[in-house]
């Protein structure tokens, strides 16, 4: 008898590409997330050589939402040469957005819903919308619905002039009112992560990223982007990487979130960044049929959440064991680890908890810790502190970059993991092709 469920398809990541990342308000100051996303998807499709009519779905995300582009994934389809028949949905899941888009595509392929899809994310911190004050908003709504001139004037008369100024939205946790930096500052204090260790870690990230650029390791990962509309420059390299990182310079910076007792500075945290990334994914059978050699395969995915009032950015500690279990492997089997660097304080906390039996017992319901992370396998080409962090693009960047590095080293398995606002976590075990 034929089984009612066919064996699941292995999910191949065939290609991955990102734009160079740029500090907010610099090279891409006038580009929207959609502009960046369309550029990277168009180039990914062209470079990969995938026939456009084999693409079934685009799943894409952005975190800094553009009210005029509620479904960015669909707009990407309509702007690029992808056929209009490619369906698309958008995801917003803070800093793990493109983990979720990649997982969505992977799951749909595994289930046989689709054979081929594009996943990714883009953000323009430059294009973050301004918001009006609550007072102005309610006055404007009253004005719009008023039915007489008098009522209209009355609606506006009560306005405090200070309420007229628009403001930039805070990147705060709506549930706690705490900014992510404050959350990280809290983690540094709870876990007693020293300023000096944080600065060491940030310096390491820049040194490794600079080396990767210099050695040409990002050549296949990063496209050159001629910047519209004037096309007077082509961005080829990440704008934030310090190619001459000097450890001493980190010490001079003042703490940002707690000026008197804090340790988190602009130097040891990830900056606001513009950029986009995308992955081309398909079933293993389709990749064979098309003759497209995969970079690697998705072995497992895991998403978790903790109370953001606790350790906000602890996600990787929770998501990793689940992903490893699902992959049927242990941390020692992993040849390469890429962990999103939101803050050096968060990284050092997470790394400590990877090795903590007591954390495992209290919070993970496991007898023993996951194990110490071998630093020679971690973020070997730097991380978000150095290359930057366009929120929704980071996961896709990590996945493509890690698979190429895995192939370069001849390893077999890799782990990508990240924390996110809301206490979320994501982890993915990848397999070399």
């Amino acid at each position: 008898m034929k089984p009612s469920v066919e064996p699941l398809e292995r999910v191949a990541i065939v290609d991955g590409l990102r734009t160079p990342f740029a500090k907010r308000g610099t090279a891409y100051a006038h580009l929207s997330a959609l502009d960046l996303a369309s550029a990277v998807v168009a180039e990914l499709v062209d470079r990969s050589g995938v026939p456009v009519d084999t693409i079934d779905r685009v799943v894409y995300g952005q975190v800094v939402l553009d009210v005029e582009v509620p479904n960015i994934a669909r707009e990407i389809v309509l702007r690029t040469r992808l056929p209009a028949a490619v369906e698309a949905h958008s995801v917003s899941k803070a800093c793990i957005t493109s983990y979720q888009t990649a997982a969505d595509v992977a799951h749909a392929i595994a289930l046989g819903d689709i054979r081929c899809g594009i996943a990714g994310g883009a953000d323009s911190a430059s294009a973050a919308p301004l918001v009006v004050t609550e007072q102005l908003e309610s006055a404007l709504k009253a004005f719009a619905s008023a039915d007489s001139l008098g009522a209209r004037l009355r609606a506006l008369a009560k306005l405090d002039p200070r309420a007229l100024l628009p403001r930039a939205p805070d990147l705060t946790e709506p549930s706690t009112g705490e900014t992510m930096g404050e959350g990280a500052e809290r983690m540094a204090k709870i876990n007693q992560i020293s300023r000096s260790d944080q600065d060491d870690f940030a310096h390491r990230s820049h040194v490794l990223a600079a080396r990767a650029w210099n050695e040409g390791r990002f050549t296949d990962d990063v496209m050159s982007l001629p910047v519209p509309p004037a096309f007077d420059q082509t961005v080829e390299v990440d704008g934030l990487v310090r190619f001459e990182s000097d450890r001493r310079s980190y010490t001079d910076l003042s703490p940002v979130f707690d000026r008197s007792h804090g340790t988190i500075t602009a130097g040891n945290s990830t900056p606001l960044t513009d950029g986009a990334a995308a992955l081309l994914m398909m079933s293993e059978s389709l990749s064979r049929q098309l003759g497209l050699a995969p970079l690697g395969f998705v072995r497992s995915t895991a998403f978790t959440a903790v109370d953001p009032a606790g350790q906000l950015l602890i996600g990787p500690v929770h998501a990793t064991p689940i992903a490893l279990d699902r992959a049927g492997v242990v941390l020692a089997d992993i040849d390469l680890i890429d962990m999103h660097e939101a803050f050096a304080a968060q990284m050092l906390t997470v790394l400590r908890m990877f090795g903590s039996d007591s954390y495992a017992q209290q919070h993970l319901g496991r007898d023993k810790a996951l194990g110490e992370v071998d630093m020679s396998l971690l973020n070997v080409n730097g991380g978000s502190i150095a290359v930057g962090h366009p929120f929704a693009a980071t996961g896709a960047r990590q996945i493509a970059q890690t698979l190429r590095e895995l192939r370069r080293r001849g390893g077999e398995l890799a782990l990508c993991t990240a924390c996110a606002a809301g206490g979320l976590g994501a982890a993915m075990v990848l397999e070399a092709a």
Partner: protein
Amino acid sequence: MMTHSGAFHGERRNGLGIIWFDVPGRSQNVLQAGFDHDLREALDGLTGTDGVEAIVIASGKPHSFCAGADVDMLDESSSAADLVALSRRAQRAMDAVRSLDVPVVVAIAGSCLGGGLELALAGRYRIAADDDDTEFGLPEVQLGLTPGAGGTQYLPRVVGVRRALDMMLSGTTVPPGKAKSMGLIDEVVHPSILIDVALETARTLAGGQCQGSRPGWRDRLQEKILAENRVGREVVFRTARSQIEARTGHRMPAPHRILDVVRTGLEQGVEDGLAAEAEAFGDLAMTPQSRSLRGIFFDRRALAREADDRVAAHDVHVERIGVVGGGLMGSGIAEVSLSKAGHSVRLRDVDDAATRAALASVHDVLDARHVRPAQQARRLDRLTVTTGTSGFGDVDACIEAVVENAEIKGSVFQQIEPLLNQDAILATNTSSIPLSDLVRHVARPDRFVGMHYFSPVGRVPLLEVVRGDFTSERTVAVATAIGRAQGKTVVVVGDRAGFYTSRILAAYLGEAARLTEAGADPAEIDGALESLGFPMGPFRLLDSVGIDVAHEISEVLHAALGDRFRPAPLLDRLVAAGHKGRKNAKGVYRYRSDDGEVVGGDEIDESVRAMLSTAAGAGQSGPSPETLAERCLLALVLEAVRCLDEGVIASARDGDAAAVFGLGFPPQIGGPFRYVDERGRAAVVDACRRLADLDGDRWSPPPSMSDTDAAASYRMPQGDGR
């Protein structure tokens, strides 16, 4: 219940009448001889005793209301008097609609041009379909004619004299939205409800309740200005007159006559206006200008049909093209592919600065055409650039547009061809190097073809497709399909140095340069040819094409075709002195760079004057403007005849069309072969012989001209050879 009368048939529906306009056996409606009779019969069937309450006029064809009068009909009429009578009959037919006792609503979907618009103007209420096919215009001037079925009288009364003159003197069309805002139509609705809304409106009008949206305050104001303000009217006419003079001087009689006829109608009333219109129509149709313009219209139509047949025969579909070389030509090709053909484009150039320049140039063209930002982004996202080799695997055609150098082109082919799939064609945008000199660098010669575009690609409507001996028919069809999709008139030419257009152009430019040796002033030569209707005289053209480019082409032609193409000494001197034309702000004319933009070009460059003075005979009073123009023109004509003799062009028709659409040869002359026909073959042969006696063998008329019947003609009888 249906009543049939040829192109028009009436239908009764619940007390209302519909007149369906549907010319049998044609994809587009046109007004043919006898249409007035058909229309009247259809009207009679619906009116009189037991008549309908109101009438809707609509087209039975989905994408054509009426493209105008059948131009073929004009060539069957032999005299001006016949054509005056034809115009009178058409005017009366429109008046029959206008003077019906019952209201008439016109429902318009598809192009509504010329006689079609004149018919629409006869209705009381006009409703247009909101789609891309629907457009309104009186394009008669483009054929050297005046509207002949009342358009000159009724359009000014509906949209105001200034707008009416704009439309009639330019011949351009307006889309539904604009037509509504100028009061030409009353309502714009979705095509699927067009007939229903028309019937509803007809019923309301019959009840006397609806007066239509016209006349609005703006029209009333305009009417006031028209009727009561002679001064205002005078200003409008004077402005129009000076615009015509600036644009075409007195070369083209039609615009002047249109203006006169409109004025007669406004000053003396519609009756006199209509009489003047018919008179003008008959006169203009007999002018050589109109004959040539109509001929060119037929040529273009015939070439379009042939091209479409060629494409259909090979079942060709093109969605994506590659372009190698993003300079002026490459970026221009990319732009028309994106904007007109809707292709996606992969463009390669050597470095980031070059790819950026290509993107910027495409962007500038879109900007200049006021393409909306959303559309711009969409087009630009379909253009991706690379300095590498990826992204060419799924192109249907790859067009090389690098510098005019056989070695460089060859290395590009070797690099690009292996990237293409088995079905893709490889095209070269060479303007002079024969494919046979390039083919050794190509692995699959059957897929190799020439696609010669003209600068600026977005504006020059010709594509010369060069067929090598080795080029397959399918490959020619793919190149043709691309050109058609890009909106080009496609002429297929043979594979000899310079093909057709570059060759006749080189002969023309070379002659102009030689004339300076005899003391003629470049500005004077330009003036002589511009007054014939060339958009640019030879030296302005040289500056715009690039003196270095023209020189290179001359050398290629010199090597391949002999002495008559030896670069003129002036050209040698200009190149040696680093004058390249507008592109380096150093040409025959004086330019300066202003914020990166090249401006000027009003006066001859001083250093060029010095080069001229070293030429023999400078300073003497040179030949007359007529002689200057004649010599340049004859040099071009003789070369065109040689191309025909050698089979570079398949027909005189192709030669005329390519000269007009590719080089801006004055359309009212209608091409080199029509020029010979109009002037008379014997007269042209005589002129050439005189020049040969004076100036050498290169003027000897080819035997095909001199040894044949002096009364023989290249293009008569006219017609498009369907």
